[in-house]
Structure formats: structure tokens, C-alpha cells
């Protein structure tokens, strides 16, 4: 590697623009920061060598330079911005409403949004945020973040650790804020130093050269916040693995006890009770709003919650063993209040009220117009019995049970084992008979197959129950996201609300040169200088950039 030796004796790495020790511009490298064309020197990273601007030969150099450019970074952000917006034109696949005619994306988009929807589907925008190209885009932003940061944090580190009070004259007089004063006494100089210390500057001196510095740590702000973002990106990579992240869903009916999926049969949940509360229509304070909502056919829920018991199967690891359940806890889960146990979190996510828990029937004479009940019986649908005997001699046998009845080519069948539309074939044995009368009965159906039945069945009552939908989560990546977010915020605040201010006092023959630099808020540093040099012979600094700008403006007007 080519080294550059400055006249002060310091050896700088290749690509250095301003000597790391004394700040003298290194002649052959002035084009890198554009210093050759301006009066002022570019103070970015104090002119330390940046890899991306130094090497540009191999393919790796080129890739590195590409990703270290802020311009490229901003372009990636802008592309991601537009790409993200695309995904909100139509609902994403997971947000296709449940009441849609078909939740199959291939059908839904075209049916609802016509030709545009069809194109949307065909381009894969219905699942845009998991598409390979969106992932690549985010990954590119991640790469840009890492390379940008490394490319700059290294020179910044070199520049900041060096910080010598004694600088070369050209470094001083090519600063943006600069002044030259004569007849400054030593006491006055000391007075300035004291005042700067009072303003909480760290003052160091070397051979009469003084450097007052403040807020150096703010320079690390951008890198700190980028580290935060990188942690978040890495955490989301981890989240895609099954080890650190579990997502499952379980429906539990009231009174039911089921194994919680995703826990390797280790945990069971029992739904003791599901509670659905609505706002009271007569509630004074919300009366008007509730009326308005009701007039539109809606209703406002106040709460839905499940009272649960969680059991642990202590024999879960023994193959073939009967589950041996131990109660872990008994608690309630409701919206905004998930339940935590043994590293899992259980959420109240949904509910259904379309299952029957029991049905009551009566037997009456077919020709009795009052349908007076001779006997009544109730079938418990969670554990249906097949036979019912009565003292009067009636006997009822449930021959067939279809929990979710439908007709398949004239054949009665059940869609599922859930009692959503129960139907039965029931044999009624009148007293002292052995031949049954056959009834087919369900909601809205009551069929006498032979037409000769002397007794008829009727549905007297039924009860429905809720099924509670619960999400189970286990997410070990959350702390990483939290950490990333915290670091990001610290970095942003650190970089945004503090500035790195430096003031150099440089003795030259009989006069004193004063120069200052800050990475932000020039107004603030000017105020500091004003305070520090008050009542001394030191001249206030002039903003050389403003002077230059004004001259340019004048030229512009004249031309």
C-alpha cells in the first residue's frame, strides 16, 4: 500500500486528503473531496482516506464504491417506498375479507377489481411483501447500510482519535469560520480558554496552539442508528426460522379441552367460558353514536374474552403414555390482554357463534293440531347419547347424527364433525312396540319417510355456544427488535441534537488565527465564539462560505 508522508512527519494511508496529524492538504489527493476547486476545504471525516474513494480497480472495489454511496442508498429507499405503496392499492392476500365470494387470490382479485385486479394478481402483488424481489430490495438496503457505515466510520474513527491542537496554517485559514487578530495578549488568550471551558468545551493545548472541542460523541450518532437498523434486519431474518418463532392458531369451544398445537402435545387449553359483551344502548354518554351505528345495521362490542385453564402434560415426552395433566394456570384472555405462560403468549383473536351445544325435542301425536308434548328429551351435542327411555314406555334411538348436514347427490352427509347444522335420523318406539317410526329431523327439516308415523318429533329449543379462536405465539426475536429500535433511537437523538464543535486558536508570528468547524448548526457555534471572545482583542470569525456565496451572487447579477 502506498503511504503518504506529510511534511509534519506523519505517515498517512493512501487516499488521505488532509494529513491526519496536522491537516495540511495532501496535494495529489485534493480532487477527491473537490478541495481543488474551492477556497474552503471539505471537512467531511477531516479528510481521512475513504476506501470507496481510494480504490476503484477490482470488481470488489466497484461493488464497495457502489453501495457506499449515499446517492445509491437514497435511491434504494425511494424504490422501496414506491414498491411498498404498490402493495396497498388492493388488499394483500391475508387481508382478503372473510365474506368475499372466494378467498382464492386467483379468483378474488379479478372478480373484485376487474382487469386491474387480474394484472395485480398476475404480477404477484397480492403477496408483495414476501416476494423475492421485495426481499432483495430490503436486503440491498441492508447491504448499503453496512457498507456505507463501514466506509465512513473507519475514517471518522481515524480522524477523531488523532485531533491534535497543532494544525497546519492552510488547514486553519481554509475553515469556514475564520479570523485573524493582532495584539492579543496572553491573558486574553487565557480568558478565552476559561470561557470556552465554562461553555463546556474540552480544551487542549500544545505549544501555544489550542483546540477546544465539544460534543464529539454526536459524530457516532449516524453509525449507532444504522447499527440499530441492522440489528432489526438481522432479527427479521431470524424470525423466518422456526426455532425462534412460533405462530399457531386454535379453536376451542366452550367447555372443550384441546391440545395446543405447536407445543408438541405438551400443553392443553380448556375454554371454561366465552364472554361477549355489547355496549348498552341506553348508555347516556354514547347514546347518539350507538343509535347512528345501529341505524346502519351495526353494533359495537365492548369486550370479548375467554376464561381459560392451561394444563401441562407432564408425560408428554413418554411415547405412548396417557396424557397426565397438571394445571398451570387459570386466567382470562381478552383483547389487548394476552396471556403469558412458560414462554408462550396466548391471544384472543376471534370467535364464532355458529355451533349448537344441545337440542331439545318433543314427541307429539301427528294428528294433534296443538302439538301437545307427550315427552321431551335433550340431546347434548358435545357428547350425544344414542338412546333415551321414558317411563311412559316411549323409547327413542338416535340412529344417525350429521353434525354439519348437507345433501351430497341425495345422500345425507356431514361436512365436518362440528355441530354447525345438526341433523338426525331418529327412531321413535311408541309404547309396547318393537318396530320404530323413522324421523329425519334438523333445523328447518322434519321428514317422515313413510308418511305413516303416528307420532311426530318437534324441535322445542336449542342452545348454541361460542368457539373461541386463539393465537399462540412464541417469539424469541422480540428482544432483538426492541434492542435495535432502542439503539436506533439513541443514535438518532445523539446525532441530531448534539453537534461536534471545534475551535482552533493558532498563533502565527505576532497574530492569532481563529478557526472553527461544526458538523451542524453554524448559528450555535458562532454564538459560542461570540461569548468566548467578548472583551478581548480577538476578532469575530467571518463566515467564509457566506462571503463566497455573496460574491458569487453578485457575479451572477452582474453577469
Amino acid at each position: 500500500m502506498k503511504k503518504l508522508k506529510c511534511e509534519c512527519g506523519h505517515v498517512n494511508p493512501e487516499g488521505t486528503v488532509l494529513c491526519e496529524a496536522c491537516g495540511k492538504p495532501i496535494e495529489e489527493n485534493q480532487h477527491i473531496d473537490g478541495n481543488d476547486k474551492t477556497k474552503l476545504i471539505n471537512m467531511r471525516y477531516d479528510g481521512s482516506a475513504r476506501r470507496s474513494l481510494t480504490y476503484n480497480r477490482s470488481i470488489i472495489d466497484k461493488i464497495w464504491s457502489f453501495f457506499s454511496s449515499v446517492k445509491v442508498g437514497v435511491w434504494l429507499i425511494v424504490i422501496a417506498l414506491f414498491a411498498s405503496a404498490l402493495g396497498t392499492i388492493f388488499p394483500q392476500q391475508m387481508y382478503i375479507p372473510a365474506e368475499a365470494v372466494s378467498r382464492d387470490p386467483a379468483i378474488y382479485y379479478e372478480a373484485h377489481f376487474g382487469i386491474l385486479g387480474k394484472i395485480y394478481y398476475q404480477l404477484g402483488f397480492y403477496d408483495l411483501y414476501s416476494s423475492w424481489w421485495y426481499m432483495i430490495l430490503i436486503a440491498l438496503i441492508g447491504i448499503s447500510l453496512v457498507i456505507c457505515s463501514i466506509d465512513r466510520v473507519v475514517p471518522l474513527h481515524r480522524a477523531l482519535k488523532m485531533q491534535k491542537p497543532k494544525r497546519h496554517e492552510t488547514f486553519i485559514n481554509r475553515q469556514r469560520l475564520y479570523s485573524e487578530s493582532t495584539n492579543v495578549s496572553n491573558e486574553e488568550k487565557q480568558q478565552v480558554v476559561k470561557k470556552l471551558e465554562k461553555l463546556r468545551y474540552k480544551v487542549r493545548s500544545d505549544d501555544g496552539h489550542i483546540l477546544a472541542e465539544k460534543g464529539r460523541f454526536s459524530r457516532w450518532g449516524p453509525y449507532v442508528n444504522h447499527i440499530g437498523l441492522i440489528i432489526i434486519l438481522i432479527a427479521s431474518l431470524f424470525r423466518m426460522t422456526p426455532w425462534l418463532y412460533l405462530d399457531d392458531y386454535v379453536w376451542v369451544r366452550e367447555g372443550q379441552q384441546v391440545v395446543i398445537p405447536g407445543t408438541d402435545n405438551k400443553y392443553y387449553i380448556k375454554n371454561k367460558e366465552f364472554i361477549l359483551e355489547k355496549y348498552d344502548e341506553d348508555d347516556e354518554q354514547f347514546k347518539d353514536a350507538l343509535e347512528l351505528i345501529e341505524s346502519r345495521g351495526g353494533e359495537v362490542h365492548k369486550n370479548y374474552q375467554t376464561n381459560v385453564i392451561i394444563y401441562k402434560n407432564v408425560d408428554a415426552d413418554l411415547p405412548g403414555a396417557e396424557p397426565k395433566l397438571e394445571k398451570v394456570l387459570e386466567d382470562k384472555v381478552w383483547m389487548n390482554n394476552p396471556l403469558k405462560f412458560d414462554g408462550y403468549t396466548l391471544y384472543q383473536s376471534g370467535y364464532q357463534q355458529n355451533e349448537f351445544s344441545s337440542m331439545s325435542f318433543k314427541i307429539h301425536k301427528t294428528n294433534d293440531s296443538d302439538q301437545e308434548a307427550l315427552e321431551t328429551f335433550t340431546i347434548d351435542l358435545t357428547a350425544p347419547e344414542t338412546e333415551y327411555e321414558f317411563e311412559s314406555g316411549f323409547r327413542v334411538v338416535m340412529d344417525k347424527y350429521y353434525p354439519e348436514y348437507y345433501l351430497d347427490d341425495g345422500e345425507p352427509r356431514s361436512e365436518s364433525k362440528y355441530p354447525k347444522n345438526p341433523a338426525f335420523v331418529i327412531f321413535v318406539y311408541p309404547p309396547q312396540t318393537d318396530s320404530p317410526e323413522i324421523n329425519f329431523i334438523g333445523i328447518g327439516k322434519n321428514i317422515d319417510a313413510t308418511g305413516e308415523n303416528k307420532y311426530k318429533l318437534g324441535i322445542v329449543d336449542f342452545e348454541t355456544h361460542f368457539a373461541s379462536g386463539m393465537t399462540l405465539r412464541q417469539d424469541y426475536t422480540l428482544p432483538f427488535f426492541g434492542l435495535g429500535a432502542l439503539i436506533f433511537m439513541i443514535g438518532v437523538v445523539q446525532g441530531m441534537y448534539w453537534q461536534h464543535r471545534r475551535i482552533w486558536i493558532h498563533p502565527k508570528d505576532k497574530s492569532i488565527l481563529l478557526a472553527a468547524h461544526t458538523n451542524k448548526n453554524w448559528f450555535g457555534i458562532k454564538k459560542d465564539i461570540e461569548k468566548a471572545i467578548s472583551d478581548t482583542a480577538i476578532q469575530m470569525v467571518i463566515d467564509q462560505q457566506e462571503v463566497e456565496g455573496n460574491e458569487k451572487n453578485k457575479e451572477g447579477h452582474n453577469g
Partner: protein
Amino acid sequence: MGNLATFSSTMLYTAIAFYSIATIMFGVTIKDKKKQNKKGMTGTIAISITIIGLIAQLVYFITRWIAGGHAPVGNMFEFMTFLGLSIVLAFIIIYFIYRLNILGLFALPIALIIIAYASMFPTDLSPLVPSLQSPWLYIHVTTVSLSQGILGISFVAGLIYLIKQVDQKKRSKKNIWLELILFSLIACVGFILSTITFNILDYSATFEYPSGDRTLTVEYNLPAIAGPQDGELITEGANGALFEAPGWLQGRNAAKKFNTLIWSFATGLVLYGLIRLVFRRRIGAAIQPLLKNIKPDLVDEITYRAVAIGFPLFTLGGLIFASIWAQIAWDRFWGWDPKEVWALITWFFYAAFLHLRLSRGWHGEKSSWLAVIGFAIIMFNLIVVNLVIAGLHSYA
């Protein structure tokens, strides 16, 4: 309770009145400055009135909180009103840093438009649905709103910069764009005016229209220019639609919203035409002379300062707090809901703004355009995403 709710809305009207007076006072300061080149009394009076207005609005906020039993940030009316409050608060803070009177002349009308816009939505106290019953509601919503208020000030400063700096001598792309921005503000006023007018007239026309295999009804409160597709007027004596809204408009009451949009545009155009008739030049050109004494650098600094405060606050409220709450309520901290995506887009945008400004030297005019676009994105997320793109955040 009813009394408290009434008192609360009176306080909101009081605040609106004070903001209006303060706006006029800030307008007077321009003349003030021309006569004497130092800080006059008028500015002090104007900011005092603004502060009184803010206090009145805080009283509205607190009393409504007590009356409703939850922080009044639960629906579109309450949220937009709070955004207006945030803009005023942000303005007051920035005012005491930079003492720029002209900022008030622009910031307060924006706040007023937003509050008036909010009042077009149902203002009744409404109960909270289970998903909103959490302390995170006010933690998340108030931080987001405050950040948006401050970013609103960056928009105002950017707008002032543009009106001052964009050349108005001859027509150019820039001043046409600027004119469009000003027109969109006027269209908001148009929306408010047309809604209020037909509210007073108690206008109502109900249409029946087929949707899938069902027949739905929709009540129009503005005369129907664009009616629902295959809609049939069922209110007697009301006017039928001039034409049917295009079929690709989807969502609940899409045709009605489209009709409202047409009305806002039309009223806005009439207003704009009137203003043009009075001044006989572009509105930008008409305002420009008022800004003669403004230092562009100072305005540019305000734009940046507002973003510097607003961006971290938005990250905190709009992404971090939002994620924490989403994790608690919906079992995932991020779900690509349209509102979430647009919060991310806003964040991307301001991140780009800061990189361009701090690393690539985009100051002055470029930075001002970006500040204006940024606020447009925020408004898009608030209004369009809530009302047009259905999602988990559609509460209005």
C-alpha cells in the same frame, strides 16, 4: 355528562375563534414590519391569542376525555382535531425559538382547515371497540399526532420558502406545481364549505344500488353529481345523479366519496377562480410580496429543525409504539396493513429527506419541496388510507 360534552364542544368552537383572530393578527404583523423594522406589539398579541386558543382546545380535550371515559383520539373527528392541536402546539414551540410571525399566518389556517375538516365527520361521543381499549391508544396516537404536527410546521415553512423563492415572473413548471399545492388547500376549504352549506339545508337523497347479490342503500348529503352504479333514487323530491360513478371504484360508499370529491373540487375551483379574479395573478404571485422581508435561510432552518424534531418522534410513535401495541393487540408487531405500510413509507421518505440534506447538501428550495411532499404523504395516510383503502385502521 351531557352538559360536560356540550361544554367541551363549546371550548372547541372557542379555540377555533381564537385561532381565527390570531391568524388575522399575524397578518397585521406584516404591515407592522413595513413601518418599523423591529418587533412590534402585534406579534406578541397574536401569539398570546394563539396560546389562549390552545388552552381552550386543551380544555376541550380534557373535558371530552372525562365525558367519554377515554382519550378523545378514538375516531376520525377526534384524531383530526388533535392533529390541529398538535400543529398549533408545534407552531408555538417553533415560534419561541425563531420568533417568526409569518409562520403563524400560514400554520394557523392549516390547523383551522384540519379542525374544520375533522368536524365534517360524526362528532358524537362514541364507545371504544375492544381492540382500541388500551393505554397504548393515547400513547401511540398522541405521539404520532404530535410528530405529524411538527412535520406540518416543516410543510408550512417549506411552503413559505417556495412562495417567496419560486420565480413568479413568467409561468414555469415550478410555479404551476406551487399553484396546485395552494389549490389543494383551497379544495379542502371547498369541501368544508359545500358540506356545511348542504348540512344547513338538511339535504338528503337516498339511493338503492346492487352490490353482488344484495341491495344496499346509501344516503347522500350532497346533491348527487356521481351516483352509485345502477343506483336508483328512492327519496322523493331529491335530484337524481347526473352520471354514475365508474365501476372500478371499490369499497364501502365509494360512489358517495367520489361525489364528495367532485364537490370539493368544484367548489374549490369556484373559490380559486374568484381569488384569481380579484388578484388577477397566480395566488403564489399574490402572496409573494407579503414575504418580502422574510429571510429565506431562517425559513429553511425551520424546515430542517421541524423535521429534526418530527422524524425521531414519528419513529417513536408511528413505528415503535405502534409495533408494541400491535404486538399486544393483534399478536404481531408488523402485519403490512395499509396504514402500517404508509407509516413505513412516511418514515422512508423523511429518512431520504435527512440523508439528502445532511449528506448531499439539499438545502433551500429542494429541501422545501421535499417538506411539502412529506406532509402530503402524511395527509394521504390520514385521509385516503383511512377512507378509501380499507384496513385495520379504518375507524371513521
